[in-house]
């Protein structure tokens, strides 16, 4: 996984609440292997119905940060939503709230999902809409976002997620360091709830 530390990039505002993962990648594309390039399916139906869709505007070309509204990525657990967004070059998203599973999936793919207060995100989307192509700077070690107008907002991040992002760590390797605890649980399970552990 590519480590994530600092990013200074064009940011694109997406001013829609409750953007669900069906909209990000319609279900009919999920039968494709990952090698098909899920970025090709990103917001497919929304883009077809709206030729002026914000991600297609010239001024936002090359954007690496998406600034969304409440509950971005709600609905289906499809990780393909993250693959599609990340595959199109986005490396971080900022919103007042995210769908829980989408939020988790973001970090698993080396993408930084940042929660900021609603009024700050509205202000940021406003700046990006008024100045298309404006840049946002994200400093993960310092946990800070610099808006186009120079305002600096601090954000919270779970230190575990931060460590995984900064170092590009494979979480499974990290987990397997706890093999003793895993085996300990399994021994207790066999003793206390054998019906959950019985060999078949």
């Amino acid at each position, binding site marked *: 996984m590519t480590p994530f530390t600092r990013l200074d990039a064009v940011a694109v505002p997406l001013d829609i*609440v409750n953007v669900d993962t069906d909209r990000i990648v319609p279900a009919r594309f999920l039968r494709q292997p990952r090698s098909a390039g899920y970025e090709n399916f990103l917001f497919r139906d929304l883009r077809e119905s709206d030729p002026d869709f914000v991600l297609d505007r010239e001024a936002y070309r090359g954007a690496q940060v998406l600034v969304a509204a409440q*509950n971005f990525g709600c609905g289906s657990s499809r990780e393909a939503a993250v693959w599609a967004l990340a595959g199109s070059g986005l490396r971080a998203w900022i919103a007042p709230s995210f769908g*829980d*599973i989408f939020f988790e999936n973001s970090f698993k793919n080396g993408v930084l999902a940042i929660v900021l207060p609603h009024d700050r995100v509205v202000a940021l989307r406003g700046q990006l809409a008024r100045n298309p192509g404006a840049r946002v700077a994200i400093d993960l070690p310092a946990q800070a976002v610099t808006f186009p107008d120079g305002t600096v907002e601090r954000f919270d991040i*779970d*230190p575990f997620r931060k460590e995984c992002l900064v170092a590009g760590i494979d979480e499974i390797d990290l987990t397997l360091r*706890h093999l003793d605890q*895993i085996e*300990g649980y399994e021994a207790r*399970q066999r003793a206390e709830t054998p019906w959950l552990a019985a060999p078949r």
Partner: protein
Amino acid sequence: MTTGVVIPAKAGIQSSTLYEKVWNAHAIAQGPGGRTLLYIDRHLLHDGSFHSFSALKASGRKVRRPDAAFATPDHYAPTRGRDDIKDAELRDKVETLGANAGGARIQLFPIGDDRQGIVHVIGPEQGITQPGVTLVCGDSHTSTHGAFGALAFGIGASEVAHVLATQTLWQTPSKTMRVTVQGALAAGVYSKDIILALIAKIGAFGGTGYALEYAGESIRALSMEARMTICNMSIEAGARCGMIAPDDTTYEFLAGRPYSPKGADWDRALVRWRALPSDTGARFDREVTLDAKSLEPMATWGTSPEHGTGVSGRVPDPAREPDATRRASMEKALRYMDLAPGQPLEGLAIDRVFIGSCTNSRLEDLRAAAAVVRGHKAKVPALVVPGSGLVKKAAEAEGLDRVFIEAGFDWRDAGCSMCVGMNGDLVAAGERCASTSNRNFEGRQGKGARTHLMSPAMAAAAAVTGKISDVRKLL
């Protein structure tokens, strides 16, 4: 099975919630920043899980606990012509699951086996889902299993691979919210109406960051099937999980199921399960109440599950929404749905009906729909897709299939079908579908499809009248 790693008791409070008890029993290690390594007792897999098997294979890792995993094709499973699947891509997905499960010695319930079905229907049906277990699946509607007092939630493909390899997940504890539902449901009002009303009340992200617990006399009075409908849609309120304390209704449901404990183990299990309900003094971070008596049958008008109203209600006016982004999103929803502000929902002509999905495809759902359909004819194409082969068989044993078929409904084999359309069961662009599923998202049932969510009885009423109708007038 308590270990040293627990959710700390709230200041001065020794009592725990159901969620905290199950969490604490599975917390095996602590990571930085409050992350906890949770042991996962049960893992359900389906034909959309192929990405995770590929990732596992690519990393050279093996499935740690094949005996704790169960697999069935549902998302891509055709609902007819299953002996010889013509669509090569569907066949490939179904066969790939079989090969992945077989290769890892994971129990598979394949097409042709009565136990095949929607993963969230067969887990409880087989007794795989039990009180107090942790259960995950690469599907957001895994919250369904919380109806048994399990800590059950949906995960993404990377997390599925993580569970396959380690049988654990890193999680951060959620805040807790108790939803207390009081009062008896009126005739024609069902658990689907409770959950649609709750989502309309707290919003599609009202539950984000929370573990929900449903409580109160109305919940206690519900069957397990009705409880599953409620927990199923917790995710539509933004909550990753929704739980209900186990009680005698739960134990009666589970007794004698294939994977339920037997004999002396059953007695041991009961002792453990009876200790699970939230303690009397347990404190929740948020409390919400809902009056069930005042509920009427619900239907949605928009493109988010929060866009619901009683059937006698009207499409709201976006002009009254103060928040600009929300207002624009409502206007967009109304354009997509081809509806005008102030328009009544009752009487709205529909083109198609779907009765099925992990929300409403169990025997009780089919009975409720059949009771409305009996003696009528469908005025629009209508599809009934039982949640499992066993549900289908049980429905046929009591003649429900005849009721539907004689009324002109299509009676199919088990799968997710038209809830998500991945198997090709789609709603055409511009068509309005009365659906018992869980999501009315843009394009969810097919590109340009317009979905109105409602209960099985309401969907049956829509089928026999050709419009959104108040089922209470047909009973």
